[in-house]
């Protein structure tokens, strides 16, 4: 092997990888600049402005607030349902537990559009429920629950929580006290990782949400789709910029946190 050829292969791979990075980053950078540029078609020399961001605020502030509210409600529900269930599933560890885990993981394999259609066909007739944001919450909970449960179970498996639990039981602690004082504190890394994932996925969820939302219960991603179809490019870009500002800190926290099991499975 000649060093010359080694260097040529290295350079070719580097150029290729840089091209892939450019494919991913250039449009995101274009979108961010377009959101603060006076006129995108005349370019950045037309000047910078916050006009589009403030227009987005006027037009879509409600979608931003609603998305945050739904994400936090989704988090509360998945914590309340998911953490105790993860404990029970892990401690039981039998066939029933494995089947339940399979069932709650199914929504990851089924397209969001199908889940939304199913919810709509089942509960579309319950007018008040269908028209409220709770309908969207139901979809988000079903879609994000497996991430919370799996993330917490992964920690239980890693720290051998059964031995801890048995130790506490031998000291005479009741199941509830063990759960509250031993299990939950030890599950904290899994709960935190799961929470970050749930909030990130809920904030960006579109496939399930689109069919469940009404003109009065639009979320941020539904508003984004709306602005891509009907607003000038600068406003759509400014709206996207707002979304980036919300989602990037969560993504950074998640990356810092991810030892294993990185990357949410959301769908485009």
């Amino acid at each position, binding site marked *: 092997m000649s060093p010359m050829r080694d260097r040529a292969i290295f350079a070719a791979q580097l150029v290729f990888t840089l091209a892939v990075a450019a494919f991913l980053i250039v449009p995101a950078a274009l979108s961010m600049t377009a959101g603060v540029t006076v006129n995108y078609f005349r370019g950045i020399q037309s000047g910078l402005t916050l006009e589009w961001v403030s227009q987005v605020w006027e037009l879509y502030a409600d979608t931003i607030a609603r998305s945050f509210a739904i994400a936090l409600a989704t988090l509360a529900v998945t914590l309340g349902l998911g953490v*105790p*269930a993860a404990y*029970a599933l892990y401690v039981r560890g039998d066939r029933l537990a494995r089947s339940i885990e399979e069932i709650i993981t199914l929504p990851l394999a089924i397209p969001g559009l199908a889940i939304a*259609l199913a919810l709509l066909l089942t509960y579309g007739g319950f007018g008040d429920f269908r028209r409220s944001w709770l309908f969207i919450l139901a979809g988000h909970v079903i879609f994000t629950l497996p991430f919370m449960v799996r993330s917490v179970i992964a920690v239980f498996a890693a720290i051998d929580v059964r031995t801890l639990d048995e130790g506490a039981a031998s000291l005479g602690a009741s199941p509830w006290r063990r759960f509250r004082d031993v299990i939950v504190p030890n599950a904290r890394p899994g709960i935190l990782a799961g929470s970050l994932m749930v909030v990130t996925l809920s904030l960006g969820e579109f496939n399930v949400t689109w069919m469940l939302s009404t003109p009065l219960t639009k979320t941020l991603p539904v508003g984004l789709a709306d602005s891509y179809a009907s607003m000038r490019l600068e406003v759509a870009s400014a709206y996207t910029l707002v979304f980036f500002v919300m989602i990037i800190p969560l993504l950074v926290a998640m990356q810092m946190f991810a030892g294993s099991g990185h990357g949410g499975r959301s769908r485009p």
Partner: protein
Amino acid sequence: MTQTMSLKSFLALCLLPLALVVTAFFLLPMAKLIAVGASGKTGIAAYAAIVLDARYRGTLINTVLLAAATTAATLVIATVAGLFLQRHRFPGRAVLVALLTFPLAFPGVVVGFMIILLAGRQGLIGEITLRLLGEKQVWAYSIQGLFLGYLYFSIPRVILTIMAAVEKLDPSLEEAARALGAGPWAVMRDVILPALRPAFIASGAIAFATAMGAFGTAFTLATNIDVLPMLIYTEFTLSANVATAAALSVGLGLVAWAILALARSAAGNAVAAAG
């Protein structure tokens, strides 16, 4: 004895809320979806029509081809980049990895907008080709645009999986192959790529299932792209053909689920873990 009894009922109590919510908002609706799919004029035959009806079959083939092309291209691109990044240390490497994984949290609608900025009517590629070739190239609002969108969506995910798998490779195997006189291509073909097979299956299945069932990107690019999710959308909202939309949804869900299940049995547990 009372101790174990109370633990058992405590565990049941822990599972109860989840069981109720999942039954009410997932299992029941899915059963309803399957029932509605068979409630149209043709009854249960609506399911057969997904394959027998020429129009639906055409869309199904289109969708499968698009998903296969996306998966193949993503795997090749991510393997070249992932191997390179995991095998070399150079200044700026961490930034490059961060840039490549930055779009992980973008939902499909946003990915669609990225493709419009890249290859749309006022996109960068159009601008460049207009200057260089005197003719504007616009790919965004068609199946090519959707292909680019799914690449955009899948590349960061697959790169992460490949990098993690490369990190776990046993270097002594490569050294042994080299000591036995194997050239770099032979090592790649006979040692490295076979060892990465589980990662290829796991991440490829997810890329495939995603490209089959995704909706947001196509919705942003153009609603007349001939793929299954858009067909479901038009049948439901524009034609009010609820039974067909339900039957197609069930079919799509089954295909996506089957692919992931197959990959999981072929690659061990890695597929489920990748979520």
